[in-house]
């Protein structure tokens, strides 16, 4: 077996978002710009690239760039796609299948509405599939409904309170205040969250992620090559993925995500425990999503997530800095947010985060969540000191 730990590194990253929630560019042009910026960040050129990851079509994107990759990955697991891409690319680089991999994401749901002349897409009944047959006729809101069900179950089973969930949004907003590109930067209180309109109970508007334009890219290469590049490498120390359902009716236990498998696996590969993690980037599509990550990754015991977050532990100055870019709750959420977890994790390890920098960060975890708590992918990144 080829050891994965430390064999590859993220060497270039880029992302973009805006306080208006909209970006000027869209589509392939926006993707290409992200790749250009990430390559520039790494000190590499398009000609160096021999691997491509893209959650819709790596072939269409490579064709657009005019490159001929020998490693290709179009895996789509929803929002965790980009963590899965890093895992696959690290394995491919470790095995010698390729040397330089780019991954990219761009989505502009907010400005798309403007380009469509303000027209909302008409609600169309979808074609035959199990969700259309067994879930959607009941008017469950997607993707919010399944997360609301998970929150309901967690509250009933463990006594988790709306106030505890709200604290996650409050702490995350405190981080967003230090990110000039964040959509929302004004402080909020637990009362503000609870006073915002209920969407799908028990989730309020401020328990839910944003809908914004956003884009990002990463560049990866081998540890050997990484050392000669422009920026300090963020080594992939561990990576693991697990999915256990697609439809919410098929999720075995709504209080336990497949992160309970991917997290410990990735930590074991990296040779770390939760205590070693300096920055946690845990996909926050909803407050309950982040709370479940804290339990499943082992930062606290199952059922104790509410108590764990309620003193602001995940906010600035807390013992576990979480979602330091402001997260999907306050920074940006274009639909599949996993790319931004990776970008922020790399920047924290490089010490590039300005006011929100976590001092001395050597180990950062990007934990992606895809579809409706369906596919979890955990990437442990570390500095040279942690390798």
């Amino acid at each position: 077996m080829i050891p994965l730990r430390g064999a590859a590194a993220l060497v270039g990253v880029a992302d973009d978002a805006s306080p208006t929630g909209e970006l000027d560019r869209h589509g392939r042009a926006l993707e290409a710009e992200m790749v250009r910026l990430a390559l520039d960040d790494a000190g590499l050129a398009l000609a160096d690239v021999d691997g491509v990851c893209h959650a819709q079509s790596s072939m269409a994107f490579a064709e657009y760039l005019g490159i001929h990759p020998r490693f290709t990955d179009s895996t789509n697991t929803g929002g965790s796609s980009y963590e899965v891409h890093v895992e696959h690319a690290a394995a491919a680089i470790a095995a010698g299948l390729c040397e330089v991999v780019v991954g990219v994401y761009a989505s502009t749901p907010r400005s798309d509405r403007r380009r469509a002349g303000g027209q909302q897409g008409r609600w169309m009944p979808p074609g035959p599939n199990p969700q259309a047959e067994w879930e959607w006729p009941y008017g469950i809101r997607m993707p919010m409904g399944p997360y609301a069900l998970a929150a309901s179950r967690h509250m009933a089973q463990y006594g988790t309170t709306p106030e505890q969930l709200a604290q996650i949004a409050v702490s995350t907003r405190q981080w967003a205040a230090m990110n000039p590109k964040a959509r929302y930067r004004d402080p909020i209180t637990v009362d503000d969250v609870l006073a915002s309109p209920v969407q799908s109970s028990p989730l309020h508007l401020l328990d839910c992620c944003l809908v914004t334009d956003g884009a990002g890219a990463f560049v990866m290469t081998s540890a050997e090559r990484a050392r000669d590049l422009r920026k300090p490498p963020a080594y992939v120390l561990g990576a693991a993925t697990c999915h256990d359902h697609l439809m919410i009716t098929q999720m075995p236990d709504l209080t336990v995500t497949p992160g309970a498998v991917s997290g410990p696996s990735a930590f074991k590969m990296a040779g770390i425990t939760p205590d070693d993690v300096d920055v946690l980037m845990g996909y926050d599509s909803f407050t309950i999503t982040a709370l479940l990550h804290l339990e499943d990754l082992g930062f606290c015991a199952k059922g104790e997530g509410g108590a764990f977050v309620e003193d602001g532990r995940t906010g600035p100055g807390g013992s576990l800095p979480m979602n330091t870019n402001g997260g999907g709750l306050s920074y940006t959420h274009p639909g599949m947010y996993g790319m931004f977890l990776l970008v922020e994790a790399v920047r924290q390890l490089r010490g590039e985060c300005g006011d929100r920098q976590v001092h001395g960060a050597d180990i950062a975890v990007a934990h992606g969540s895809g579809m409706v708590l369906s596919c979890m992918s955990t990437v442990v990144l570390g500095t040279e000191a942690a390798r």
Partner: protein
Amino acid sequence: MSDPTQSSDRRGPGDAPQRMEPPTTDVSAPFWAATREQRLELPWCTKCEEPIWCPREVCPGCLGTSIEWRPAAGTGTVYAVTVDHKPQNPGMAGWAPYAVALVDLDEGVRFLTNVVGCPPDDVVVGMPVEVTWEALPDGRQLPLFRPREVRAPDAAGARG
């Protein structure tokens, strides 16, 4: 992805609320046929002696194809519940707020449904429920659930 800040189009007061009609497949045809007579049936693997949900061509336990439709008791317990205030389907706006629940049927499968027959906020995890039916335009019936009265334990014991 849904936009929590955007409101659905609402139907005029004269329009009847409209659900999305569930599509049917060959594998689910027996389920929907039984609903026409308000019978709730579940597919069982005759080898594993386990119910399967949702319906599929093979048993996810043994990959066998020996599947038989059997009547279900129509009783269960709420596993999780959310009350939807802003439906995505504009046709359901007239029904909001309504309860969407995962119900664990006594046979051991988990069913997504609406719990009706009480204020939506009264539906709680652990509530006993039983099936009730709503007619679809094509003659099929959609299984919904409503609160179920549970006999006191001594009364239930007296029967045995």
